[in-house]
């Protein structure tokens, strides 16, 4: 089942020998004109009335546009100033070799991580992840709270800002120490909760290549049954440190996730360009990161979120393009505007899960409160997304039905996006010692869930 890395050495060599380009011409003369031409050639058009499009022709056109864009633009290595380029035959070969499923985690906690189809009746694989930083003293309680969630197939822990009381600075010994503390504490938390083999994605504290390499250890650290992420530079760029990570993950033997967040309002422009770029990022993930799955977080340049109408369209359309035309495994990462213990964040989580699940994505939930504030995330936001994801497959929801639901739910919050409530801190709405939600938040959760049922969602339980 596991695929070998696709011609890794040959492709890495292109970062040394590919065509020369500096950063600005790469964006101004290559990236932007080809993106504009692709939107026009394939007639890609965003429709605000249909955040969940049901048009297969649109999904297939988006796939073709993304493929062509990737082949024409390539990936710039900013350290060597060389463009790594690809031809269609090798993209097709790599796509053919992608197995479409992996057994991740270990022992009784192992799970099958699979490619999903549009309107797939299998539930999404759900990774529960706070995506924010936390106080050192809250790392274990927060991790335990996420690990306790029944629908969590995998967990990604919060990020440390301090280690042993020292402020962590990237690329210094404090980062190494913090990364080891992160990996060890998460492993210990998983054992305490009784899920010692659960699929872990670690460690967000290790931003640099050296810190990631330092935590590869099948006893106390990241195991080969776990996963790590490797990112891209905005947009379609990479550097040697990121390539170091990609190579190390392959040689160590863990699962690689390609972490890419095309920016709506950035170099890709509007929804159409952002969606094409997200499709292209899947190919960068497959060929450059040599990744086993793609983790997508397209986001709005002003709000750092993706629960608005135009971003939901980007998510839905691009995941449909991938689901219909490849066997690639793709995650959709919710970036929500409101903070914990607000009705808005729960509605946003529901909408993000609806748009993603019905379009063929797995779920990675959720960065909340604009992904900006320390200690401001809880497992209940992820639980809502996962429950809605399971409801979609349970009730065999079609895209048209999802679109109707999304329209109703988005209307509840879209005028509050710019000044969304920040909500509560983890320690305010959770019993920290027990790592359990407090009654007030559970009551709010139940009210929102009831409302979703009234709107037509059918939860399995």
């Amino acid at each position, binding site marked *: 089942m596991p695929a070998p890395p696709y011609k890794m050495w040959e492709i890495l060599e292109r970062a040394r020998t590919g065509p020369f380009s500096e950063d600005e011409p790469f964006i101004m003369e290559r990236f932007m004109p080809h993106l504009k031409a692709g939107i026009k050639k394939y007639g890609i058009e965003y429709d605000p009335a249909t955040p969940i499009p049901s048009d297969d022709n649109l999904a297939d056109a988006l796939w073709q546009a993304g493929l062509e864009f990737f082949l024409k633009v390539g990936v710039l290595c900013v350290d060597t100033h060389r463009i790594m380029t690809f031809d269609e035959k090798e993209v097709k070969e790599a796509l053919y070799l992608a197995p479409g499923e992996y057994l991740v985690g270990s022992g009784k906690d192992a799970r099958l991580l699979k490619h999903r189809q549009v309107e797939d009746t299998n539930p999404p694989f759900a990774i529960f992840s706070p995506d924010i*930083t936390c106080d050192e003293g809250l790392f274990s309680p927060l991790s335990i709270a996420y690990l306790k969630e029944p629908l969590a197939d995998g967990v990604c822990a919060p990020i440390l800002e301090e280690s042993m009381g020292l402020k962590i600075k990237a690329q210094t010994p404090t980062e190494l120490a913090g990364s080891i503390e992160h990996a060890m504490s998460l492993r210990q938390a998983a054992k305490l909760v009784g899920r010692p083999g659960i699929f872990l994605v670690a460690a967000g504290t290790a931003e640099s290549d050296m810190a990631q390499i330092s935590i590869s250890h099948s006893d106390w650290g990241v195991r080969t049954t776990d996963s790590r992420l490797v990112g891209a530079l905005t947009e379609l760029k990479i550097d040697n440190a990121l390539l170091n990570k990609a190579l190390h993950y392959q040689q160590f033997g863990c699962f690689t996730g390609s972490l890419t967040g095309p920016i709506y309002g950035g170099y890709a422009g509007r929804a159409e360009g952002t969606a094409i770029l997200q499709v292209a990022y899947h190919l960068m993930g497959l060929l450059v990161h040599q990744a086993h799955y793609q983790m997508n977080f397209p986001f709005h340049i002003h709000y750092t979120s993706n629960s608005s109408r135009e971003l939901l369209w980007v998510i839905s359309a691009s995941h449909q393009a991938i689901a219909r035309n490849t066997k690639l495994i793709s995650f959709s990462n919710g970036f929500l505007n409101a903070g914990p213990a607000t009705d808005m964040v729960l509605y946003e989580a529901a909408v993000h899960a609806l748009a993603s699940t019905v379009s063929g994505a797995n779920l990675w939930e959720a960065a909340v409160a604009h992904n900006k504030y320390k200690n401001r995330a809880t497992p209940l936001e992820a639980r809502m997304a996962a429950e809605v994801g399971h409801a979609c497959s349970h009730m065999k929801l079609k895209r048209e039905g999802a679109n109707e639901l999304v329209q109703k739910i988005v209307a509840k919050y879209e005028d509050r996006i710019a000044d969304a409530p920040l909500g509560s801190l983890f320690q305010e709405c959770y019993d920290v010692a027990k790592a359990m939600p407090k009654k007030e938040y559970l009551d709010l959760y139940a009210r929102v869930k009831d409302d979703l049922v009234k709107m037509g969602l059918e939860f399995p339980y």
Partner: protein
Amino acid sequence: METLERLVQAVQDGEAQKAVALTQEALAAKIEPLAVVKALTEGIREVGDRFERMEIFLPEMMLAAQAMQKALELLSPYLERQKEGREEKGTVVIGTVEGDIHEIGKHIVALLLEVNGFTVYDLGADVNALDFIKRAQEVKADIIGASALMTTTMPGQREIIELLKDMGLRHRFHVTVGGTPVTRDWAEEIGADSWAENASQAVAILEKAMEERRGHARTTL
């Protein structure tokens, strides 16, 4: 439509070739170069405002800035001769701090500062604290702008301020900080002079800071 209006429109539309031709036309028609610059500056400021309102997107703003740059290149020999009349807003050295490879936010701030009349030296990403200071000294900058996109790289902003203090240079530069995880509280904690939540806010804050600095300098003198 008058030449000047057409020129502003060409710049706003990001049509560099047309902007160059119309600048030449304006000069041939003996339109005062300073009047051309003034019209262009107002026009490009409007582009920045439209970007903030998301009526246009980054590609359009970048093309407009490029067209503006081409027009200004043609005007610069005339402006050298008439320097006294041109508004000099200030010189900014900007970059993303050490260990951080994120550039787009800093890039947008640099672009907006530039189109609003600041002279900007963009040092790129992963910039060592001392390199910010050395470059700021070299170009006689007024402002050092340090961006950080990760909590683990934010200490790089503090390092710049601490080094400035240790080098006896803190008073020489206005230090502004920004980036997604950077908050007003953090800016205050590390002793930064200003913090902005977004690019347009950064322009307004730095314009005000420069006015205050000039006012202070005049009073002192």
